[in-house]
């Protein structure tokens, strides 16, 4: 199910668009979209309408291009759209379901690790290769000459602040941490063509573990425990947050690959340990290599669950539905967003993003507008480039 929001100034244009859509075989329009149009209110000389629970400004609709590409006016995007609500919670377990046909999860993993290194945060990296340290050379460097202070960094700090405010409630007498926030700016833009500065990965700054050495997972378990024990939750220092990055955890070349319950047990234990530490754990896994029921168990364990999917080259139908199709590497979907200390689920504005490389250098995530319509009627949301790296905010 995906959503397309169609805002028009006149019912006539709306009907003509719907008429066009009917010719698309996969799309299944619900008439609720038409009904919603009628709840319109005029304030001054502007018209607003209610869609879902948001008030949208009605702008003049840009004419539908003849073969069906939709382009929404950029200003329609809700100005405070935050992918995943602004970052990854400290203490959360983020899991990414890989697509075995494409390595796009590596882009996310690399950015996650680079961001940690650039900000002097300890990183633990585990992968199913004989020499995981070699991977460090492929981490991207920061994008220079851009203004590092993006809007997102404020949101990121706000998110950390929120996480820390829970700590405040628990402790009851910690000083407010506002004075810290101003000093921490998170770099979100990375240049994928430039490797990271050598001094950042020199020596033992990054702890590397090879999953091939672990026949019983005891090795990785111990490494993680030791790593996390140095980052206790009530440390009071945000910059001491650590990152654990585990790549392709259930890769078939690992000896423990067929020990389903051992793997589950490991994930469960790392989840609890990370929960009580100043760290975020990032774990990617090829979900299709697990049985459905085991995969579901893993998905339940994740605090935040994402999946990446490759976009087939030369898919003519997709090309007509998505603008900028040729530049797209893949799709990023958000299945679950972490919600700590609250029972209200996070319902995101959008759950599917396209991954693109801008100028072959930086990873850009653009929202594909979502609505209860079958098929992927998408348009590139007009996110400004600095806010595009939203999902890479930690």
């Amino acid at each position, binding site marked *: 199910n995906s959503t397309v929001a169609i805002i028009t100034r006149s019912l006539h244009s709306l009907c003509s668009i719907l008429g066009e859509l009917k010719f698309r075989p996969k799309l299944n329009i619900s008439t609720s979209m038409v009904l919603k149009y009628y709840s319109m209110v005029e304030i001054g000389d502007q018209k607003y309408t209610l869609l879902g629970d948001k008030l949208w400004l009605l702008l003049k609709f840009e004419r539908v291009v003849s073969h069906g590409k939709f382009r929404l006016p950029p200003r329609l995007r809700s100005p405070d759209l935050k992918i995943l609500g602004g970052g990854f919670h400290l203490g959360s377990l983020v899991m990414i379901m890989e697509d075995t046909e494409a390595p796009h999860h590596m882009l996310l993993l690399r950015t996650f690790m680079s961001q940690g290194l650039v900000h002097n945060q300890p990183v633990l990296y585990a992968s199913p290769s004989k020499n995981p340290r070699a991977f460090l050379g492929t981490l991207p460097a920061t994008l220079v000459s851009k203004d590092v202070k993006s809007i997102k960094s404020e949101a990121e700090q706000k998110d950390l602040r929120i996480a820390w405010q829970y700590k405040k409630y628990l402790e009851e007498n910690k000083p407010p941490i506002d004075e810290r926030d101003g000093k921490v700016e998170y770099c979100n833009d990375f240049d994928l063509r430039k490797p990271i500065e050598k001094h950042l990965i020199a020596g033992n700054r990054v702890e590397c573990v090879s999953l091939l050495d672990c026949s019983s997972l005891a090795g990785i378990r111990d490494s993680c425990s030791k790593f996390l024990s140095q980052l206790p939750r009530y440390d009071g220092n945000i910059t001491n947050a650590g990152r654990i990055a585990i790549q392709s955890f259930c890769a078939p070349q690992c000896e423990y690959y067929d020990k389903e319950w051992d793997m589950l047990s490991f994930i469960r234990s790392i989840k609890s340990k990370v929960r009580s530490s100043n760290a975020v754990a990032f774990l990617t896994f090829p979900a299709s290599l697990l049985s459905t029921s085991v995969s579901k168990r893993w998905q339940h364990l994740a605090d935040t669950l994402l999946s990446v999917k490759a976009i087939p080259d030369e898919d003519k139908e997709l090309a007509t539905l998505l603008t900028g199709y040729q530049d797209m590497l893949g799709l990023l979907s958000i299945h679950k967003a972490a919600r700590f200390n609250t029972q209200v689920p996070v*319902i995101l504005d959008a759950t599917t993003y396209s991954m693109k490389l801008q100028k072959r250098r930086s990873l850009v995530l653009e929202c594909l507008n979502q609505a209860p319509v079958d098929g992927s009627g998408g348009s590139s949301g007009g996110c400004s480039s600095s806010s595009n790296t939203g999902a890479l905010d930690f």
Partner: protein
Amino acid sequence: MNRPATLLDDALTLDDDEPIQKGRLILVEDCVETSGAFVLHHLIKRFLSSSDNIILFVAFSHPFSHYDRILRKMGCNLAAQRENKRLLFFDMLMLECPADLAFVFNLWMIDDGVEGGLIALYGNIYKAVEVNSSNKNITVMIDDISLLEVAANGSTKDVLNFMHYCHTLTTQFGCTIITVLHEDIYSSGDEFTFPLQMEYLADITIKTEPLITGLAADVHGQLTILDKGTIGRSGSMKGKIHNFRYKIKENNRLF
């Protein structure tokens, strides 16, 4: 205290006079898209609102602070209840049978493997229920049994035995058991026997699932409640099915 006119309470026939379902086993089934945890939180608040009730909470998925924060927003202070011994909290997050169980419960002698671990856990639950049930209503909540399976290293048979033993507590002490199960894990083949067995044991099954049209900001999902019914005065069984949509808020649920 006002009676909150929530559909959920009505469906479970909870009211101020009898805020608890004595001697029944309630199973909450959920999936990745819609978590059933909010049902548990609602019931915790409901039961603790009467001073005759005690809750024994066996937690496998979240630490105490998580529940404390959530219930606080709903107007219930779990920390205080724990001090007053109205809430007994077993934190099983780091538990892995068999070794850890011995550590958690200060046992120096342990039987073989998983079975021993679960027996020990049951023993502690039994003791707690026995001690507290004489003058109060006690409810045992387990969050959740899919994780109990992981802690038991996949030994579903032992977990089922454990649940059967817990079920005997409902008849012996009139205590209520409430547990959460992730239904979408058991979609195929022999694995499906586990939820089937649990549904058989349960008197009331509460299932949360997303709407067919997917998630939306104003409706978080739908609840289906199957109440197998109690023996009526004439000895006949009356079952009931309720279905409604819900939206979860910080301090309330809107049905």
